[in-house]
């Protein structure tokens, strides 16, 4: 169905189910409980998870399949954001034209950067992409200020032309982004006893886009083009002597991943129409590398999981401060409580990067295949235990032929 094989279709349905039920799945704790701060089911954070998921899915098409490690993909994210805001300034608050323009412009710029950077491979390629991205970052603060808004960033105003929309609302406010008449920020809160779930237009719109982005990635993975990208990673020399030119294949992968980044950047401003240059900083480029590796480079679902984990840690761990931890350990004797708080202090609040770093080091050392490999290992362990307990039943050996990149 949908041109997918059974295993891929199942994976796709799982992703859709996760997206549909995320507002509930991510809010497992009652609002009033002390655990409520671990809830992630609010629109802002869920949109972030999904948007960075798209960014990482695209990055994985380049890095996971071809092995070319770009350190400059945040530039395309930023370009997508600026383009999106400009479309809303000039044309309309409907986000669809904004998203299309974000993808097209990011694709065009990545064609240029990719064409130059791909003359090199390995570390030189990475450095070239990094240099280009930093160049864009600096330009955004200097000569490009008329386009980017410089330090204050690019935002909407009531003076914008907005040819196919209103300059200001009846109340004199800046209009909000919409999709076919629906406000992006529109949200409904559903209460179930102590639990409350927020259903928002913005999140579900982003989720639909991510589902499409994921579907396209699956198709690319299973296509002859995807096979060629894996061939690039495996042995370019062999490719040359097999009658294939690796360069256009790699360039196409670079542009596709640049377009995914542009789409993610466009979605960011569709949720909150403000673009700043910090989005293009090298740390942002590094972050998507971490997401992909953490989840499992070259796997289909890995980048989504990696993006989710990192954005979750960032949002949740950074809000935990010493007084919150004091609250958790209050029942303990004072000396023990204070010791525990002192030990945890560097890992929480502003120290969340330390937590992330530790998680990353642990994963790379013990699970080089990322979260996906961890999941597989757990699955195997579980299966073995179960089959040890039960009498061996023929046919349940579950020797599903391993799909590349599953």
């Amino acid at each position: 169905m949908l041109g997918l094989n059974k295993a891929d279709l199942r994976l796709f349905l799982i992703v859709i189910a996760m997206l549909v039920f995320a507002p509930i799945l991510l809010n497992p704790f009652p609002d009033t409980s002390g655990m409520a701060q671990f809830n992630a089911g609010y629109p802002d954070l869920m949109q972030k998870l999904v948007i960075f998921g798209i960014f990482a899915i695209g990055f994985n098409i380049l890095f996971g399949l071809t092995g070319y490690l770009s350190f400059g993909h945040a530039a395309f994210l930023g370009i997508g954001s600026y383009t999106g805001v400009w479309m809303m300034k000039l044309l309309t608050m409907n986000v669809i034209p904004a998203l299309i323009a974000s993808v097209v412009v990011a694709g065009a710029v990545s064609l240029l950067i990719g064409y130059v950077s791909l003359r090199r491979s390995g570390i030189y390629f990475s450095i070239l992409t990094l240099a280009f991205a930093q160049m864009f970052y600096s330009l955004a603060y200097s000569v490009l200020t008329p386009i980017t808004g410089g330090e204050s960033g690019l935002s909407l105003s009531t003076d914008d032309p907005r040819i196919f929309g209103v300059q200001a609302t009846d109340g004199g406010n800046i209009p909000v982004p919409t999709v076919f008449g629906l406000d992006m920020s529109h949200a409904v809160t559903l209460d179930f006893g102590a639990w409350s779930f927020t259903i928002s237009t913005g999140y579900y719109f982003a989720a639909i886009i991510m589902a499409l982005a994921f579907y396209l990635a699956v198709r690319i993975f299973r296509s002859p083009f995807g096979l060629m990208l894996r061939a690039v990673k495996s042995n370019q020399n062999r490719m040359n002597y097999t009658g294939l030119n690796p360069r256009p294949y790699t360039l196409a992968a670079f542009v596709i991943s640049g377009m995914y980044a542009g789409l993610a950047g466009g979605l960011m401003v569709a949720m909150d129409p403000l673009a700043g240059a910090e989005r293009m900083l090298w740390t942002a480029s590094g972050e998507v590398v971490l997401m992909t590796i953490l989840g499992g480079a070259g796997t289909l679902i890995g980048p989504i999981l990696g993006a989710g984990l990192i954005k979750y840690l960032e949002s949740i761990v950074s809000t935990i401060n010493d007084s919150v931890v004091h609250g958790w350990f209050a029942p303990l004797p004072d000396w023990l409580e204070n010791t525990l708080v002192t030990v945890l202090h560097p890992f929480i609040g502003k120290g969340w990067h330390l937590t992330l770093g530790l998680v990353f080091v642990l994963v790379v050392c013990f699970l080089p295949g990322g979260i996906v490999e961890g999941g597989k290992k757990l699955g195997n362990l579980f299966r073995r235990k179960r089959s040890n307990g039960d009498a061996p039943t023929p046919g349940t050996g579950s020797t599903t032929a391993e799909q590349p990149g599953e």
Partner: protein
Amino acid sequence: MGILEVSGVNKRFGGLQALGDVNLSVAEGSCHAIIGPNGAGKSTLLNCLVGKLIPDSGTVTFDGQSVLGKKPFEINQMGISRVFQTPEIFGDLTVLENTLIPCFAKRDGVFRMHAIESIAHEADLLAQAEGMLEELGMIDKRNMHAASLSRGDKRRLEMAMSLVQNPRLLLLDEPTAGMARADTNNTIDLLKQIKEMRNITMAIIEHDMHVVFSLSDRITVLAQGTPLVEDLPENIKGNPKVREAYLGEAQV
């Protein structure tokens, strides 16, 4: 006029004349061996044929068309396929995928953006690749990672990757170098099998004379970058000049 014509080819590396005025003509349908002691320039000559090196002077034509200045993938698209001294395969991919890639290259050219179609729907090419693996006795290993194959099977797979493209000229660079006797004999058998089944034009570069005498229709002896003699295998064996070139080597 042979399908491959090399004339007046020179190649220098700094002060070293690696190839000096090499002339060679490979007739269509034949198996032509190029032999010579280590350092004679055999690999250099082969690299000039496949686009890895460009000769300082001279011409190389394939089917009347010059190959000089062309990229390796363009030369492959002309119908020349090369087998490496140490097997070059896609180690991370499965045996079947390894065999499929040359099929795509043959059908779609050096690049084609087929990013949405599914490989599973390429019934023709899948059948072609599987048929090739069947022919070389590797169909059982189709889902194995190529990197995990034995050395002999890697050679076999590489051969499958070349043959599945139905090349007009197959170039082999020391296909038995570093192999034990048993493996060498297996490879000879494989090459004989290929020769009989497909009547393919082959140019084989060898150091080991035992290998070439059992395969080739014609032999060129290369010494210090220059062809010494070119003749039928039975005439080469007794040739005193060849003896001299291989002086001190036990094979002759």
